[in-house]
Structure formats: structure tokens, C-alpha cells
């Protein structure tokens, strides 16, 4: 770490420093920068005095506590609009009847059934047909962890290898992506893109520059 790098430290790092949101390495970097820039302690003071760790301030200005009656009233307004009462046996009979009718109609229809398809719907093959259409790789399989993939979003979140066969699937092609803006990440790496996508500190989403 040298003095030049401390000079480059964005002041908004002081917010994360005051809130304990930096890694030990990042904290050390800020502390080094503060040691070399004592004037910046005034900036830090504003961050600490209005941060959540200033318990004295937030105790003093805590909102008036609603009464139990007010809480009960609020809950009683919520409950009927979110909780659907459990169905009684008459409701289940009605549902069973509806399903049976629907099944009868479905299997009575002639020809192939529309619900039987071999592949998930809406997955487009975006394999490049010409060199000009070479896709941007937004992330590798290792870079992405899909926490939830509802059926409706299946066509929007295809990253990495095809789960059902050979060939590459991509998130989108070049014409479908527009970057509206790129902000700094916590390590201050954006908006500058790295030349080497395999560098240890390369950001997760990276695209090669147009030649």
C-alpha cells in the first residue's frame, strides 16, 4: 500500500468505515489514509455521529411508541386482507369437482396435448451463427448461484452450460443489453474494467471491450 493509493481513496469509504462494513484489509487502508489526511477526521466525525452506532442520538430521537391498542388495530386491519381462511370440506369438494371436470375435458380433446413438451418453454438458442454475433459471456457457472428460479423466469436466467444438453446458453446477446450506468463496487474497481478477466480481483460481471 503506498501513498498514491491512499490519495485515490473515495471519501464515501468513510461511511462504510464508520459503520463497520469494511473488511479488515479495507479498514487498514482507510486508517492509513486517515493517518495521512488528518483533515479528513472532520468527514469521519459526521459519519460516526449520524451512524447507527451512535446509540445516544438514536435513543434520544426514537419515535413515540404506539400503544397496544394502536398495534392491535393495525394488525386487525392486516389480518383479513392477507390471511385467507382455510377451506372447509365443502370447498374441497368443489375443488375436486372442478379438477375432475377439467381433466375430463382435457383428455377428451383429440390430437396432441398442448401440455406435453420436451423442453422448457421460451429457451432460445443463442449460439452464434456468425463471428459478428459472438455472445458476451456475462458470468461463468461458478460465478452465479441461482437462489430461486420460478417457472415464469426460466427464460430470463440462463447462464453457463445448457442443463439438458450440449451447447452454450447465454443470458442475452449484445443487442439486448444496455448498460445504464456502472457504480463503484465496495473495492472501488468500477467503472474501470480490467484488461485481464482472469485476474484475481476481476469483478464478477465482465465483458470484453469492442475491438
Amino acid at each position: 500500500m503506498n501513498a498514491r493509493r491512499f490519495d485515490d481513496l473515495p471519501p464515501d469509504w468513510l461511511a462504510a468505515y464508520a459503520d463497520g462494513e469494511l473488511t479488515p484489509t479495507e479498514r487498514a487502508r482507510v486508517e492509513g489514509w486517515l493517518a495521512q489526511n488528518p483533515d479528513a477526521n472532520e468527514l469521519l466525525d459526521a459519519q460516526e455521529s449520524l451512524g447507527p452506532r451512535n446509540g445516544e442520538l438514536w435513543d434520544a430521537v426514537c419515535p413515540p411508541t404506539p400503544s397496544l391498542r394502536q398495534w392491535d388495530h393495525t394488525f386487525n386491519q392486516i389480518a383479513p386482507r392477507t390471511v385467507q381462511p382455510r377451506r372447509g370440506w365443502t370447498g374441497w369438494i368443489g375443488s375436486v369437482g372442478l379438477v375432475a371436470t377439467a381433466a375430463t375435458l382435457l383428455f377428451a380433446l383429440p390430437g396432441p396435448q398442448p401440455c406435453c413438451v420436451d423442453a422448457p418453454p421460451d429457451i432460445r438458442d443463442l449460439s452464434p451463427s456468425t463471428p459478428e454475433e459472438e455472445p458476451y459471456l456475462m458470468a461463468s457457472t461458478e460465478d452465479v448461484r441461482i437462489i430461486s428460479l420460478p417457472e415464469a423466469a426460466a427464460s430470463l436466467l440462463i447462464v453457463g452450460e445448457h442443463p439438458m444438453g450440449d451447447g452454450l446458453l447465454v443470458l442475452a446477446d449484445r443487442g439486448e443489453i444496455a448498460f445504464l450506468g456502472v457504480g463503484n463496487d465496495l473495492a472501488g474497481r468500477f467503472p474501470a474494467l480490467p484488461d485481464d478477466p482472469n485476474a484475481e480481483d476481476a469483478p464478477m460481471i465482465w465483458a470484453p471491450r469492442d475491438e
Partner: protein
Amino acid sequence: MRHVTAPTLPERDDHLVARATRGDRHALEDLFRRYRDPAYRVAYRLLGNTDDALDAVQDGFIKALTHLRGFEYRCSFKTWLLRVVSNAALDLGRQRRRRDELSAAVTERTTPDGGSTPDHADPGREAEENDLRRALSEALRLLPEAQRRTFVLHVDGGLSYREVAEAMGISIGTVMSRLFYARQKLKGMLASRVQV
């Protein structure tokens, strides 16, 4: 002989949400009790009075539980709820401004229907704290909406930078930047009232 009961672990949020949406009123009540305080603090700080804040909490809980397709467990339920509550509070604030009632809202209203400020043996200190609360309310109101919301979700909602980023759909760098500038401005507006 002494019987030792193992401590009961609190039920996970996703289990409670699932039960609540299946019609289990007890689960809904548990969720409400678990998160009503941070939701209320966020709404109060964005609106400045108890009645409106409780309306936003009510609206937020209803929308959070009836629009679960937008949630899909991509973040914690608390993050999702505070996102919806803060949206509801800002919407309510806009409606109120349109009704040209801003001046009435800036002044902290007492809550004749039972809401109470913390008890104080020292009336002088109580007055000082009310004064500080009013000053903070006014200073917050002068911040740009995005900075105000970011600040409140972090400080009053207790969300981490990552959670605020998830709640607002922005990067952690943007959270950091908004918090920095919000505090710089607040410090300037509140001058010597706020000490570390």
C-alpha cells in the same frame, strides 16, 4: 429433580410466511410482532408522525404478503418487508404533499390515542429530545428522496449495506455513497446538536 427445557428456536421467517399465506393467523401474528418495530421506525422517520407511520406499516405488511411473487426468497423477509413499507411510506408522503398538508406533518404531533414518547423524569431533557427529533425530521425531509430512504433503511431499519442494496435494487457502492453524502448534509443542517 429439576427439569431443564431446551430453549425453543424461533421459527424461520420463510416457514412463518408460508404458514401465514396458507391462512394461519398465529404465524401472521408472529411475523407482525417480529418486524413491526423496525417497519414502524422506518415509516415514522419517512413520514414524521405516528398515525401515518402505522398506516404505512399496515399497507406494507399487506402488500409484502400478497405480492410474494416479487419476493421469491431472493432476500430476507425483513429486507423485503422494509422495501415495501418504505415504498408505502413514500407514496403516502407524496399523497399528503399533494393535499398540501406538509406543514402540518413537519411538526411532530402528539398521539392522543395512546402513543407515547419514552418516559422521562426530567422534563427539560424531554423537551430537548423532542426538539432534536423535530430538527432531525426536518433535516431528513430536506434530503433527496433516494438518500433519505437509504439512510433510514440503514439506521432505523437496521439493514446492512448489502440488505439496503437488495431492498433498493442498487449497488453497495451506491449505498455507501448515498449514506456518506446524506450524513454530510445532515451534519451541516443539524450543526452542533449532534455529537458523537
